[in-house]
């Protein structure tokens, strides 16, 4: 019996209905789980806890605004409350609640047994937990961030925010970004490469399609905000000048970088809810989704166009009429695919046999409420109108209609729909409908009046107001509504608790569903499906039950390999937590945390180096999972370096003091280092060819040669940096110093990671643990190395050569 199988003979302590295990075993089981279903539950429970915390913050905000001149909290505390409310709800509640459904449902919906990289999946959860706890630790430290969830520069500078609140905020967002990126790459590979045979892209459920679009949005939108946050971190920690107007910096840069991420982010928040609605409506109308391909294409278009509208958040920033007009047109265009979905959903219901379950209530609620939010949104698309509405409560009303009326209602629909599958128990329908109506009434009572409040001039982010403004009545009404929302959420919690304790048992297919998750037991076994399901088309399970053809024979019994539990994801997460704490306390602690993280990553990477089942990971595309993942990662790196390079070029020539590039850059020397890096790429392909033909001697030679050439490049760079510092160019000297050192420094950091990676492979080869079967590992390392090379090709031309 293999080690993997033996581990999985241990009792499943995590399943709520199985025989209870001793608490230590149970805790360890959850800490080391790599099962996508349990990770989904972890995401769901954690995110719901953060949702309650964000909700409490909102209630305090509403209490403060309930009456003019109230003294529930001070102005400073109020600023912290709306900052933490927004940050918590976006990053710690809605996104991970979406992730809970991605994790639990996507493998089931595509007929897979798990995600492509189960341990990475666990890692993304633990890093998320670290980020969420670290952000809220700011309360314990007495310095919560108070600069708004969007953190506009230069309010976030050391000059205007000297306490550590902003540091907590930016570090936690950087950590959360890592979590999201890892998960996104995982799900892209899972969806593209792990679907059951026969499940072509257009046969996939719409929720899976929306998940795929969201993962691409995450992978491409997070790098710009990462760069923006790095610039902010460098300004605050190392006195650079990215957002320093006196040194030539441009405060608009932060706004651009934030909203290049921020607008795709709103689609990251809403598209999963659209996917859920697209599953719920057909089930409870007993009709296929109307125009499913159009719904899919519109989702893809929304995702793509979402990258072209970001500056509609900046109409009041003074970009000029041409830029305003361009983004206005783009914003109006993006409403079209969204509107298409609304009509498709309505057409799905039309003529259907309606079963008015709670899930359907929430789904229909989304359709109506999101339409209202969309209508106010299209008003914002007009710059002259937006100049009146921006920074007023009209915008607050809009964003809550789309995020609560849209995302949250969609999540509740998903919860009521998939709860029986996840728990094997029903939620009570009467309590469910009570939940819906209280939430619906409370939500509209809270936010509809805010349209009016904004229209009559109430600004956002004010902690009190005078009675003479005439805002008292509707603020009071809004506050009452907020407590209605709380009551609705409480009803859900009661419903969930009662269901888990003594809910009615649910069969495998309680709703007469259409998709694959209903084909397996409720809850599913650890391996999801006893046999990989046949795929007969879109709504494949429905076709299997009611279609004209007979069910094809089940494939021959296969040996099921389940991924083994691992504690290394927790170790890596802990290392990152220690590093983050060290960043705000003492540098030595950063080093300790970094050491734990690096050791954890190495042990994580080598944990299954010799596991036979992990040698080949070829999926439905005929490609290895790891290779697909690396190409996706390199796509995101295009955004990372694109942002860094764009910033360098945008700031070129704007330094207030010297030295200037032409005074200091050493082109002959850099030409040699460029040649060195190009040749290292040649050595890398020779190394891969040697590994593929199992030529151990040449493999070791070329692998070491590649790493050695990389070290030479780093040596040149270190010499160059030393020379520049000696000649007066430092990070802090001027804008050129800040942008040059950060750009080339980050590239150098990437080279360093590559050198360490290659030397690790070389050491494995020296110990006889790298053979032809490991060629894909060398290939993946090679892809990374060549990409680092091409980035330098671009940097060499744009930074050094172009005058």
């Amino acid at each position: 019996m293999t080690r993997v199988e033996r581990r999985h003979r241990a009792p499943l302590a995590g399943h709520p209905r199985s025989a209870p295990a001793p608490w230590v075993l149970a805790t360890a089981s959850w800490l080391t789980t790599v099962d996508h279903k349990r990770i989904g539950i972890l995401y769901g429970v954690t995110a719901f806890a953060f949702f309650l915390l964000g909700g409490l913050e909102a209630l305090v905000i509403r209490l403060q605004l309930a009456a003019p001149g109230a003294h529930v909290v001070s102005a400073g505390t109020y600023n912290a409350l709306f900052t933490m409310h927004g940050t918590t709800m976006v990053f710690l509640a809605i996104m991970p609640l979406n992730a809970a459904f991605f994790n639990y449902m996507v493998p089931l919906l595509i007929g897979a047994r798990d995600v492509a990289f189960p341990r990475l999946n666990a890692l993304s959860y633990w890093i998320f937990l670290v980020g969420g706890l670290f952000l809220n630790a700011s309360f314990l430290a007495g310095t919560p961030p108070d600069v708004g969830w969007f953190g506009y520069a230069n309010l976030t500078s050391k000059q205007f925010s000297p306490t550590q609140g902003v540091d907590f905020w930016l570090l936690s967002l950087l950590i959360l970004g890592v979590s999201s990126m890892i998960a996104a790459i995982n799900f892209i590979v899972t969806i593209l490469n792990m679907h059951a045979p026969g499940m072509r892209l257009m046969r996939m459920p719409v929720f899976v399609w929306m998940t795929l679009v969201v993962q691409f949005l995450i992978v491409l939108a997070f790098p710009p905000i990462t760069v923006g946050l790095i610039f902010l971190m460098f300004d605050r920690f190392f006195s650079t000048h990215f957002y320093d107007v006196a040194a030539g910096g441009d405060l608009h840069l932060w706004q651009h970088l934030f909203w290049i991420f921020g607008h795709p982010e709103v689609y990251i928040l809403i598209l999963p809810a659209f996917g859920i609605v697209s599953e719920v409506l057909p089930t409870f109308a007993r009709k296929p989704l109307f125009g499913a391909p159009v719904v899919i294409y519109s989702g893809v278009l929304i995702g793509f166009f979402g990258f072209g509208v970001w500056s509609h958040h900046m109409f009041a920033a003074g970009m000029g009429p041409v830029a305003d007009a361009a983004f206005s047109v783009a914003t109006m265009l993006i409403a079209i695919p969204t509107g298409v979905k609304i009509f498709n959903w309505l057409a799905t219901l039309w003529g259907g046999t309606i079963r008015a379950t709670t899930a359907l209530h929430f789904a229909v609620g989304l359709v109506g409420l999101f339409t209202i939010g969309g209508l106010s949104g299209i008003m914002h698309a007009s710059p002259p109108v937006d100049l009146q509405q921006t920074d007023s409560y009209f915008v607050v009303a809009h964003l809550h209609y789309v995020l609560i009326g849209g995302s949250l209602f969609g999540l509740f629909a998903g919860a009521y729909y998939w709860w029986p599958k996840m728990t094997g128990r029903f939620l009570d329908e009467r309590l469910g409908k009570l939940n819906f109506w209280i939430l619906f009434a409370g939500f509209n009572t809270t936010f509809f009046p805010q349209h009016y409040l904004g229209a009559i001039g109430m600004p956002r982010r004010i902690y009190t107001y005078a009675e003479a403004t005439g805002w008292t009545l509707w603020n009071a009404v809004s506050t009452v509504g907020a407590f209605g929302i709380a009551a609705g959420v409480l009803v859900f919690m009661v419903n969930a608790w009662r269901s888990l304790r003594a809910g009615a048992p649910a069969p495998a297919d309680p709703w007469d569903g259409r998709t694959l998750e209903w084909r397996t037991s409720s809850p599913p076994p650890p391996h999801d499906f006893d046999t990989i399901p046949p795929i007969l088309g879109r709504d494949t399970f429905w076709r299997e039950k009611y279609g004209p053809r007979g069910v094809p024979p089940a494939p021959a019994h296969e040996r099921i390999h389940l991924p083994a539990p691992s504690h290394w994801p927790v170790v890596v997460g802990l290392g990152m937590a220690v590093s983050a704490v060290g960043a705000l306390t003492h540098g030595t602690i950063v080093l300790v945390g970094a050491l734990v993280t690096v050791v954890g990553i190495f042990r994580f990477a080598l944990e299954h180096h010799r596991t036979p089942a992990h040698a080949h990971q070829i999926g439905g595309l005929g490609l290895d999972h790891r290779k697909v993942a690396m190409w996706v990662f390199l796509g995101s790196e295009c955004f990372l370096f694109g942002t860094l390079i764009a910033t360098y070029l945008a700031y070129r020539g704007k330094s207030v003091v010297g030295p200037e590039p032409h005074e200091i850059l050493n082109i002959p020397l850099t030409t040699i280092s460029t040649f060195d890096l190009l040749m290292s790429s040649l050595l890398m392909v020779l190394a891969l060819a040697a590994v593929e033909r199992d030529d151990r001697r040449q493999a070791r030679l070329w692998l070491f040669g590649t790493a050695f050439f990389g070290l030479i490049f780093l040596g040149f760079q270190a010499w160059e940096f030393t020379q520049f510092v000696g000649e007066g160019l430092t990070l802090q000297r001027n804008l050129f110093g800040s942008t040059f050192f950060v750009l080339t420094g980050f590239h150098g950091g990437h080279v360093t990671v590559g050198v360490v990676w290659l030397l690790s492979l070389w050491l494995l080869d020296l110990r006889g643990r790298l053979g032809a079967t490991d060629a894909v590992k060398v290939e993946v390392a090679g892809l990374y190395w060549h990409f680092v090379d091409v980035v330098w090709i671009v940097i060499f031309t744009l930074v050094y050569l172009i005058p």
Partner: protein
Amino acid sequence: MNNRTGAHATVWTYLKVALVLTGVTILEVGSIYIRQLTPIIVPLLLVMSAAKFALVVLFFMHLRYDSRVLTLLFCGPLLLASSIAIALMTLTGAFLVFGR
């Protein structure tokens, strides 16, 4: 491996690519010292840089011989990132087109 053309680059192909990369790098550096090329130096350098970029991606990264899915996964984000970078530079006045 899902090879698009069924072919695989040979060692000799890699060496030829390395030679071309070396030659183009020499041309790049040399061209900045030729005064007569000043009016066209920027597009010239960009074209040469793009050529080197393409050679490494197509041959060293094997994209020429690999699945079209991988080409989409890389080139899509590359084009989008380039477009957004150009838009960002335009909006921040790098090209002095929409000066505020």
